[in-house]
């Protein structure tokens, strides 16, 4: 099965070649759906309709099944994330140590709600349930860096630094 034959609107680029390779490695087995979705998200950043159709064709699964699985699991993103992402851990230890107050402050200051991306697409705010670094709670992941023992001020400074020129509208 060649990528082109699937007619799903995905560009034939390197990412598609790599995705196809992983699907072949899994011998087009339906049980490998989660692995394939992980790979697709790793390559494309998020999952969209074209990817769902492509994977459903490749594994010979109804597209509703692929969509159903992808929406069931929290880690699969269905929307394009912003240039920068800030992910708050909302595990029990972080909750007890007051992460909720930091989240609300960031939401207000940068005009972005949890699970959403700012209007200019530069900052996404995500919530995750426990990264397992509870001894350092509260934890915040700024892009790929885990910041332990986070304070409101430290997080605000980090974000302001990331956004640099301050183009994100603040109230």
């Amino acid at each position: 099965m060649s990528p082109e034959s699937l007619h799903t609107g995905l560009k034939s680029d390197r990412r598609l070649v790599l995705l196809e390779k992983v699907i072949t490695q899994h011998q087009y087995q339906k049980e490998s759906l989660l692995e394939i979705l992980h790979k697709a998200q790793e390559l494309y950043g998020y999952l969209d309709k074209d990817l769902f159709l492509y994977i459903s064709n490749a594994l010979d699964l109804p597209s509703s099944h692929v969509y159903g699985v992808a929406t069931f699991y929290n880690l699969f993103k269905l929307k394009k994330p912003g240039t920068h992402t800030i992910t708050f851990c909302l595990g029990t230890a972080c909750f007890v140590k007051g992460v909720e107050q930091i989240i609300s402050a960031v939401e207000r200051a940068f005009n972005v709600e949890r699970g959403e991306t700012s209007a200019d697409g530069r900052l996404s705010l995500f919530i995750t349930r426990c990264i397992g670094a509870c001894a350092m709670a509260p934890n915040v992941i700024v892009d790929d860096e885990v910041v332990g023992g986070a304070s409101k001020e430290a997080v605000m400074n980090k974000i302001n630094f990331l956004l640099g020129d301050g183009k994100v509208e603040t109230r």
Partner: protein
Amino acid sequence: MKPDDIIKLAERDLNLRRSYKYRINVCCSSGCLPFGALKVLKEFQDAVKEFAVEEECKVARTGCVGTCYLGPVVVVEPGDYLYQNVTPEKAREIVREHITKGAPLKNLIYSNETFFKKQLRLVLRNAGKIDPFRIEDYISTGGYSALIKCLTKMSPQEVIDEVSASGLRGRGGAGFPTGHKWNFVARAPGSPKYVVANLDEGDPGVFANRTLAEADPHAIIEGMLIAAYAIGAEHGYIYIRAEYPLAIQTLKRAMKQAASLSLLEGDILESSFKFDVKLRLGAGAFVAGEETAILASIEGRRATPRPRPPYPATSGLWGKPTLIQNVETLANVPLIINNGGAWFSRIGSPRCSGTKCFSLTGKVKNPGLIEIPMGIALREVVFDIGGGIPDGKKFKSVQVGGPSGGCLPEDLLDLSVDYESLTKAGAIMGSGGIVVMDETSCMVDTAKFFTDFCVDESCGKCVPCRVGLVKVKNTFEGIIRGEGKVENLALLKKLGNLIQETSLCGLGQTAPNPVLTTLRYFEDEYISHIIEKKCRAGKCFTSHKEASRK
């Protein structure tokens, strides 16, 4: 490779280890990495070269020591000197003074008798002591000798009998006797049979399984191999959260190394026993840790539980007999085989033998990973090992068992940690989370937090959990908005009991625990929220005001 070759390899590596005068163990697990552990490791490696002590001092990358609150943590052997908050500068100093001059740096050494004294590290026997990326390290500490004993001296039934005699119970939370389970799967008709190692540690506030996988992956693999031999399984899966990148990497490498020494796949140690293991990544679904949901997820479907029977022991993966065990349970198995079931049954309390790993977090001076013998009192865990509450605050509550565990008050602190006592008090063993709360935590807000979590994570398949929990959540929101009525309390109790009794799986059956226990032990806080519209901890009505300002 034959069993003899493994034994020779162990001797060779042990001699190599003994040839070093010093060994510096640098903890590089997920707890210490964000504090810059890799930079510290690099600095140690450079420093031993620079001071020309490479021949006598081995620098090793290891897993978790347990004192996550001191990270990055470094332990220097012999003598187990524990250095805290090590920076690259301090690393250089340690090599210069301790290694080259033999003078430990007293001002940097952390000594806390009580944190370690009450612990008993069996499952975590190798954590922080061996390099998880080197199979030789595991083998030289006696690793895979239990497997060799099984393959060369024991029949599968003898292995099962030994595990039964140990009294080992499932560490995933439910506490089902492991030997019984193995017997069921061994006797179930159908082939092939499967072993699933459950590392879907989805509970917020719990990181014991992750730490085990990062520190000692081969203990899990050896446990799986012995289980597979006992029940006659050919294939295995390790189901792990995708949120644990380091544990995934460690396990992958461990599997590859085990296969290269013919300890996995093919004819294992040139016997007729065959067993292969695949790694499956979760994708952020708490319910996937439930035993029927994990099967659905491995098969590439939505992780929704199904009614039992049939139990996975008779009809699991693709309808075949399947043994599902938590990784902590599996890591106990090699110890039981090597030392005997009778030895194991004498550890811990009479009804619950062995130890349990807990992640101790929240408002406690020494948060970290601990392993305690079953049956010790919660008070010892919180105040002796945990060091009590920081900043002079007062203890309020301890939650045991993850998001669906109960919140217990001070007068229950003398409760012993075992399955039955905890369940009787309204808490659960769960997968091993202990979260301590002080007077600044509001119990109404806390119960709402756990309810929110369970609402998010409910798979939506059965009505009591899907609809009931939302009703509970809405009631809480009313109370926190200041619209609570005294009748709400009776409603919460009724709903809680109903959800417990009628939900399909463990998630729903335990989800009301935080609500019911806070109602049972902290009813006065609910009353003051409802009647006086006051939150003594100052959490509820202010956050509501903030939200409305927004």
